[in-house]
């Protein structure tokens, strides 16, 4: 199944990599510091997803933008799921019921301004599960820069099958 990001009318384009700003200035809205902060927060959240502190903590939940929509899941759905997972872990004596992953090689690129006034970037990275056999995949998703922070924005699609 393919998924496509929702089309945005391009207002401006700024290519930013994890290595640093490239032909952009801080006035375009995304700094290296923003990127580093997002990567660090998201990576550590994923790594600690089997703990209640991370699941219910503001750090992870605040990584989801208010306009988050991904395959029909809204931010409210995600927050409810994270809180629900925290309760389940407590009941299960600390045994998580979801596959755990780590994030590596994360990069933020292709930040594009939209006619709606949003600044949307692409997050790419490698997800890995190493419970027994190692499974690694490349993934991408969208981020939104708002209120001085990069957050997960999703594919903005409602369909999931």
């Amino acid at each position, binding site marked *: *199944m393919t998924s496509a990001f929702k089309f945005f009318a391009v207002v401006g384009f700024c290519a930013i990599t994890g290595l640093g700003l490239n032909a952009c200035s801080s006035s375009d809205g995304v700094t290296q510091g923003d990127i580093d902060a997002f990567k660090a927060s998201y990576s550590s959240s*994923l790594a600690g997803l089997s703990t209640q502190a991370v699941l219910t903590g503001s750090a992870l939940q605040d990584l989801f933008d208010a306009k988050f929509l991904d395959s029909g*899941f809204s931010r409210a759905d995600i927050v*409810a799921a994270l809180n629900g997972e925290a309760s*389940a872990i407590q009941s299960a004596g600390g045994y998580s019921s979801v*596959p755990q992953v780590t994030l590596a090689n994360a990069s933020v690129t292709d930040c594009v301004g939209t006619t709606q006034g949003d600044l949307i970037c692409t997050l790419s990275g490698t997800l890995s599960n190493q419970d027994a056999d190692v*499974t690694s*995949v490349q993934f991408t*998703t969208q981020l939104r820069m708002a209120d001085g922070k990069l957050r997960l924005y999703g594919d903005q699609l409602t369909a999931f099958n």
Partner: protein
Amino acid sequence: MTQLRLREIALASACVCAAASIALPPFATAANKAKDKAAGAYVTGDFHNHSTCSDGTLSMKKLIDKSVNFWGLDWFVQADHGGASARNCTLAEDPFTPVTPALKLTNNTDGPFPPNTFPPGGQPAATGKGPNLSWQSTLANGVSGIKGDGTANPKAMWRWQEIKEYQYAVTESESRRLSKPIWMGIETNAPGHEHVSMTILDGQLPWPSTGSGNANLLAQFEYCFDRSDTDTSRGAENNWDCSFTGSPTKNTLVDATSKKIGKAGNLSGTNTTTDPDLGHTKSIEAIKWMNQVAPNGSYYVPAHLERAGVYDPTTSRGFNIEHLRNFHNAAPQIAFGFESMPGHQASQNRGEYGGTGFTRTIAGGTFGGTGYYAAKVGGVWDALLGEGRNWWFFASSDYHNRGIFGNDQLESTQDFHPGEYQRTHVMVRKGSGNLSAQGIIDGLRSGNSFATSGQIIDRLAFVVCAVNPALPLKANRTLLETAVTNAVKANTDVRIDGCATMGEKLVARPGSSLIVAIALRDPEGQNYSPYSFANPSLKQINITQPLNQPVLDHVDLISGNVSGFVSPTNLAAYAGEAGKVLTGTAGDPAATYKPDDPATLNNSARKIKTFNASSWTASAGGIRTMSFVIKNVQQSQYFRLRGTNLPPSTPNETDADGNPLLDWAVIPVDSTKPGTIPCTDAACPAHLRTLNGVKYSSFDVAAWSDLWFYANPVFVQVNGSVTVAGLIK
């Protein structure tokens, strides 16, 4: 059967079960932590087949050689009928030269079939050797070497003696020679019913074990519990007593002389008009006995269970759902499934279901080669899964002979060799160790297995996982699709926390979302079909596909709710008949059938997704990968798979929903009735049913045309919903 008698049996089963101490079996439990699961591999085998020690046509050695050596099975259980036999199956054919099967192995293309001598000199030789010679004529001490109280001439040897003193040694020897787990089982003639595939491994020492083992417990089982064993000698010097501490009330049924359940006039201890349901009681006792003496090394799997029709308390016939529930209640660690994909797939009446031999076959016959109990979505199998029972689906060859063809020929009008057409693929966790018979039995018990016909697929990875809410859904799917694809490439399964595979249950929180991820391999190249002409079933819909190069058309994902264990006291929900023939002969188009009783149904079961070339991802080597999202689960449920080479709405084969149609209609018994699917290719073989000069798809061609696989289920237990228990409480 009166309601009162059925209630007595059901209650008796429940009471004894409640009183027994039952250890939780290692199945239908929450998926273990991934790091605690040893690495494993799917291995193929067969546990139901016949030599000349019952009604087969091959020696044990040649049967094993064909199955393991030629057709390449990884494991093998040699399982003749219980009872007695005059023939010495431990003598190999002479000359015993493994013969590569081929088409038209005769010195005359017009027959005779089977060929008089092949290879030159004959198999078996005309004099002095061969598995068709009698025990009486081949034992050093002649008839005096045959124990028990048989009176036929030549004297038949009871199966218990055959197993204990002669057959076991052959399997142990062959197992060591071929470096594969090969051991003894029995297709027991179950009291009160038809046949059951069973084994007791304890005592046997197949490869990779060393030393000298025995099949004494298996032999004792045969004496004690097979209804065709009417020997009263207590196994001669074995002095067996079939009563046991786990069943004090049933021990009162044990005959004082034979020391097994039975009596004068009913030495079998089976169902009769005088002793209704006695046989079923004895079968339950058999399971409990196995559970007491060998709880880990045993299985008890009803075979071709729809063939003989619905149950009759006054004779030994079929199995209704309540009997399967009773078996499972007695020992879920031992009675954990059925062979609803029977052998005899090349028979005129496929599976030997229906027709003049079996006029009462449930629902008339097989459906895509599978019996009604498993083929019907929402039928008996789904009813059992809907209780959360660990009840698995298996296939086996039931090899006897090849009909009008010789054992070394590739045509068949009756059976396929073990491994040639049907295979049970089972996960065996062995880490870095060797494949072991106990590991195979553990795998069968676990439910991490799938069954195939015609090599339509040869690998499968099937998991249900919780969605990680911190990841985009597409990332979840990509991760899991990669995991199942990697697993198929390695012929293993997925070991990821938060995922469950076949035979396991995923514990999920209410409102969570799930991903079903599947990868399989549709092998490239040719399968074992000897025919390369176009599949006549597909030719009807203008698809040209060589019969020996089948292509998987689609995979159905089927789901049903788990609503909890049915109490034996709730007779309306516990007991009933499905597919009962009311008028006419099973399989005849004019036959009528009784509507299925509610106890045999799970109305929540339905197909929720079909994957095909437009929705799966195809990758190199014939691998197909697919996934499906289920949001907001609230109800405990299960998921299972089936797949086929035939599109929906293939005339005479599948309906619009892709369900298999009755096979029987393809090969009508009455020769005055028209043929169904013409086989018009010039290469269509001479042995096909021919009417007015037109050949029709039948026998082995019909089987090779219509291929299926069935995967065992993955359960999901939603917290706060029904517990997937797998056991009576």
